């Protein structure tokens, strides 16, 4: 178990509990009452800490190394039926972006998502979940195939951004993302996008145009990471907490601002604290949303999708104000 800095009180109590348990074991003295009390105390502390998380603490949770990544969600939701499909048919196969078919209770679904590595070696190979243009083009190829065979699409978003490398620029990172934005608005099949970790900038949006865009409770979604925002606007790396607040990047803020369609509640202590529970929650949410979306015609979905994104933004018309 890896504890974040603000989880220190929970860690201390948990260590105390472990000690108590081992003493009880060795001494054969019945300490069940003290153990139960301590367990209740840990629960209480966890509730207290997790009901008052700051924006920055949520950013930390979204990056928790024990948090499940895309392939883990796909495997659980598809009951291990996932068949991964590779390549953009042009330059290669991007390991930072995965996709393929899976069966969800008898319904074939096209799954797509950024994938972070689970160990040091895989983190390199998957470039920390930062996709290259061929990743976005693979995603689009698979989405088009889903459309052709009338299968719904579910994307899992978890990226610190699109990869800012030399070859990414040569191969048109901007064009690849832009193309996805345009094409995704016109997809005839239902599209559900779920932010499961980090939703950074155009790299996240590149697979983020959906009928339903949902955020897990302890994730973030914005135009820039709090660290980079701090370095650009405050010209220092040390304002990341302030920047995290200012950016209004949490699921609650994004929902209040009407920029996402819903929040998926995480288990107490965060998604990493109970994988089975978050997988079950995400699966039932996908099924619930698909049920609703399937009742609409492709035209209805496309129109609603375009109207939704077109309504985003806050402007004032000076002339209208004048006439009031």
């Amino acid at each position, binding site marked *: 178990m890896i504890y974040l800095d603000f989880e220190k009180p929970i860690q201390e109590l948990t260590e105390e509990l472990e000690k108590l348990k081992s003493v009880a074991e060795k001494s054969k003295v019945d300490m069940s009452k003290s153990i139960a009390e301590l367990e209740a105390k840990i629960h209480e502390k966890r509730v207290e800490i997790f009901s008052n998380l700051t924006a920055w603490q949520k950013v930390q949770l979204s990056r928790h190394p024990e948090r499940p990544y895309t392939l883990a969600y796909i495997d659980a939701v598809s009951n291990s039926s996932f068949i991964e499909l590779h390549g953009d048919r042009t330059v290669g196969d991007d390991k930072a972006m995965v996709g393929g078919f899976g069966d969800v209770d008898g319904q074939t679904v096209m799954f797509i998502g950024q994938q972070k590595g689970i160990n040091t070696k895989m983190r390199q190979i998957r470039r920390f979940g930062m996709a290259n243009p061929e990743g976005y083009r693979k995603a689009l190829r698979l989405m088009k195939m889903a459309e052709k065979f009338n299968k719904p699409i579910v994307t899992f978003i978890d990226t610190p951004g699109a990869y800012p490398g030399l070859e990414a620029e040569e191969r*048109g990172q*901007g064009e690849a993302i832009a193309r996805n934005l345009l094409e995704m608005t016109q997809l005839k099949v239902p599209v559900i996008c779920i932010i499961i970790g980090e939703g950074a900038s155009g790299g996240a949006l590149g697979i983020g145009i959906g009928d339903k865009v949902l955020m897990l409770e302890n994730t973030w979604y*914005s135009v820039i990471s709090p660290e980079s925002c701090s370095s650009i606007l405050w010209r220092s790396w040390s304002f990341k907490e302030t920047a995290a607040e200012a950016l209004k990047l949490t699921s609650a803020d994004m929902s209040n601002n009407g*920029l996402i369609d819903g929040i998926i509640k995480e288990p107490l202590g965060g998604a990493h604290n109970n994988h089975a529970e978050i997988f079950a929650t995400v699966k039932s949410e996908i099924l619930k949303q698909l049920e609703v979306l399937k009742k609409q015609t492709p035209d209805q979905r496309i129109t609603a999708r375009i109207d939704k994104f077109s309504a985003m933004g806050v402007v004032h018309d000076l002339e209208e104000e004048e006439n009031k």
Partner: protein
Amino acid sequence: MGWFKRLKEGITTTTTEKRETPEGLWYKCPSCKKIHTAQEHKANQHVCLNCGYHERIGSAEYFEIIFDDNNFTELHENLVSGDPLDFTDTKKYTDRLTDTIKKSGLKDALRSAYGKVNGNDLVVCCMDFGFIGGSMGSVVGEKISRSIDFCLKNKTPLLIISKSGGARMMEAAFSLMQMAKTSAKLSLMDKAGIPYISLCTDPTTGGVTASYAMLGDLNISEPGALIGFAGPRVVKETIGKDLPKGFQTAEFVLEHGFLDKIITRTELKAKLSTLLKMFKN
């Protein structure tokens, strides 16, 4: 109450008044260091007479270059940005807006207008780098969105002139969603079969590149313009070595297949009207 109430009294100078070049001034080219009179330089559309360096210009200059007799009708000119996040960095966003509006004579980083180009109808959305680095906020997205509605209704082709450092951070996710918004609207142009030309000028980067700037039926550019998604500094940090010469220039982007053509500013109007005719006939 909205900050824009205070703003109304603040707007006194127009872009055209501000941009008037007094006679007798000189223009020194930052590229070749040759000096020409400001008048000569302006007559050559702010392109260096010696080396062809394209000076950065704004919407007022582009409208004058493109529209017949500088005749155009501005669209949605009274839109100003809100402050949905109540954003403050080292300065309040609303103060930044008020100051920039006063200093630049502009209301945001994009102006839209329709008029004729050698007799051909065209809507032009043109970004102004002088307004918070040409950053894309809600007003930029909304003006493009409404301009596309106008194009769809009147079957008028669209030209967007990009010149931007990318997203407007003070509008955070609202800024990000302008990429989705403009691309969604462009998909309607696509379906309707109305031509959209994207002109990338120096610089075109970030979220603008990753949305409307790269979505033209034709993507064109001015020579030497910086065009990319990630900024050169970020790419350099990623690869840990110096960038190859000419990296992310218009010429580089064309060689890699993402631009249809590089057109010098002095030829822009003629080429545009030829293309518009070819789409029509």
